[in-house]
């Protein structure tokens, strides 16, 4: 860090350190400097974390010869600058009003996780050559991951949208369990992030310069999203066969030569993730860190022989 203007906190730490404390905990000291370095962009989102995230106390004043206890609960904001402590006060006193800002930031992180599941790129855009078009008339991209390599879905905008919808749906089911005042902003912000990203992709990857054309596609996408909510909710309540039909209509576009094993894997994956997020607390979801696994883990469950196979005459 050879910066001309070193920050006050770092200078203080370097000035006050004693050789013993540095040698005994080299790792924790470097982590301390990372935690206490005040960033210029302050995120209110940080205050939705609860004190589960444990801090190392007694950072900078190291006249204390005792080694720091890494498991002690500390106050992350003890030496924080005025702006951060003001933000914390605001969050405490006006939870309702600030909820929407917390929701916006958290859903942005959550949406990024949803969007990268079936991410694809169109390299022809940079090379300024025409993009290849699939048989159904959609522009083809290049994508990695289970959805493209194992299930052989075509890397198009529509596939990306549908797989992203699937993951957004899993989060939506969980958001419904938030308090009635706060849940609508979480739903709305997640959807807004999707539309921002969809429009960005249309502009940058597919060269849709006309705003009117993009608006028409976005309206279609909104109708698809409402349909997805109804269809997957119906499947969640009524059973696996109904859910499989919904997945088949949306992700596989109702193709007649669909691979039933892939559909079953996606159904199993959806149910697994729904019960997974249902087990997380509100704070954990609000922190914006949710990990989806891969549907590949469901393959053995799907291939297990059903008792109905044997009872045929």
């Amino acid at each position: 860090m050879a910066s001309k203007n070193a920050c006050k906190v770092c200078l203080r730490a370097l000035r006050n350190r004693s050789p013993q404390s540095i040698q005994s905990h080299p790792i924790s000291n470097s982590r301390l400097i990372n935690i206490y370095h005040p960033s210029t962009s302050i995120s209110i989102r940080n205050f939705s974390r609860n004190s589960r995230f444990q801090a190392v106390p007694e950072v900078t004043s190291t006249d204390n010869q005792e080694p720091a206890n890494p498991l002690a609960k500390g106050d992350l904001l003890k030496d924080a600058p005025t702006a951060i402590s003001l933000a914390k006060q605001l969050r405490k006193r006006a939870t309702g009003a600030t909820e929407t800002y917390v929701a916006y930031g958290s859903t942005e992180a959550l949406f990024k996780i949803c969007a990268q599941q079936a991410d694809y790129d169109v390299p022809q855009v940079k090379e300024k050559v025409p993009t290849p078009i699939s048989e159904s008339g959609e522009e083809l991209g290049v994508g990695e991951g289970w959805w493209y390599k194992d299930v052989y879905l075509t890397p198009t905008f529509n596939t990306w949208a549908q797989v992203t919808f699937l993951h957004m749906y899993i989060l939506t089911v969980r958001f419904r369990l938030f308090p009635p005042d706060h849940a609508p902003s979480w739903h709305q912000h997640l959807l807004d992030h999707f539309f921002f990203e969809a429009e960005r992709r249309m502009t940058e990857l597919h060269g849709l310069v006309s705003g009117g054309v993009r608006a028409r596609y976005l309206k279609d996408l909104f109708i698809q999203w409402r349909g997805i909510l109804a269809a997957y909710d119906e499947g969640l309540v009524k059973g696996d066969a109904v859910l499989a039909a919904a997945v088949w209509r949306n992700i596989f576009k109702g193709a007649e030569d669909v691979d039933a094993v892939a559909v079953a894997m996606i159904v199993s994956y959806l149910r697994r993730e729904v019960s997974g997020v249902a087990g997380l607390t509100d704070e954990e979801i609000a922190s914006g860190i949710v990990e989806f696994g891969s549907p590949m883990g469901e393959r053995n469950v799907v291939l297990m022989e059903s008792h109905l196979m044997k009872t045929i005459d």
Partner: protein
Amino acid sequence: MSRASIPKHYSRILQSWPKDPLRPEVSFQKVIERRLAAAQTVSPESEATELRNINALYSLLDNRYRKKYPAPARLFKPTSNPAYYDDLIHELSQAPNRSWLQRFMTKLKGTIRLS
């Protein structure tokens, strides 16, 4: 021997697969019917694939995944709107039986929100 049972499996699946009155033009039954027709001439290589597909369809009919990953009961009575899923299922059962006028009035009522 299992090759002869493939059409029988497909007929059984066709009988048990739930019907969807809400989406009459896009039905999964068509996929099964097409498979049933194609099953008369199935090659040895695709036999294993067909049996795997049949097994997957049976597992879906059996609700294997709902049993394996049960969702907690509070998921179906969400805090923000406890009647959500009940209302949805009721609405989906009513929707196919509405006349044109009823659909129009429902749409009209939906554009106005009194709150």
